[in-house]
């Protein structure tokens, strides 16, 4: 017996919730970045579960797209974090409230 579609969606929802709460709780830019990755993964799980239960390839294809976008996001996001660290010697998002300098 296989678990139902609903149980996969519930797991995905729980993981998304943990990620969303983590983005608010973390003050560290890298920690927030990792929480966003967790939320993206929760959505990927939904895609794959629907793809499995409806017998359609499209869901898995879009998981691939989401992964590519996540890779691009990682490259640019970590570049921004390094540039910010070089200016302010900190990755605390509270220190990023000033646009100038």
């Amino acid at each position: 017996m296989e678990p139902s579609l609903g149980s996969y969606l519930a797991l995905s929802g729980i993981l998304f919730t943990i990620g969303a709460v983590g983005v608010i709780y973390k003050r560290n830019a890298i920690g927030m970045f990792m929480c966003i990755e967790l939320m993206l993964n929760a959505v990927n799980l939904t895609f794959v579960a629907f793809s499995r239960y409806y017998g359609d390839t499209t869901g898995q294809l879009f998981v691939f797209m989401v992964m590519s976008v996540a890779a691009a996001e990682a490259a640019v996001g970590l570049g921004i974090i390094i540039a910010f660290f070089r200016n302010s010697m900190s990755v605390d998002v509270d220190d990023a409230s000033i646009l100038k300098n």
Partner: protein
Amino acid sequence: MIGTALFFLFAGLAIACAISMVYHRNPLYSAISLVGVFIALSCLYVTLAAPFIAAVQILIYAGAIMVLVVFVIMLLNLEEDRPHSRLNYLYALGGGLGVLLLAQTFFIFYAVMRSPNQPADQTLSPGKTLSIGQAMYTEYLLPVEIVGVLLLMAVIGSVILARKLTAPQIELVVEKELEIRKEEDAKDGLGIAL
């Protein structure tokens, strides 16, 4: 039966690792916990008959992205996250958001009870690498091209972001380099002429 057991094993692992990721203040512990989530999800993809996505999950997420994150953590030599002192309202906000999202999750759980409870026919096999590749390069060619352009933009953007010099400094370096090349060209030109 074994499918359900595997689901609960890996689901529990994923949730435990996710909570550990949010709980730890040291970013390196968070990163390692996140790798645990990725591996648990990859195992779930295998049980969902999606071996290609499972392999790509390990390669891209646990391999590429997390190595990048751990490198940045070590490069910046980060200290532990400072505790919230004056931002107590954030705890209330986060708790409220969490309760709201969890309520939505369980609403979804009851709403999909009438959706297919049995997976589609195995012979359809949407997870095969062959069928994914065929769909990718016929029906969904345009999105694939757009993702390619996006990756190129990300490469260029991260190079520009990570450079050390500001724009005027770069102009100075370029002018110096051009002068040096001019002198060298003049010497070489003489040499050839002679």
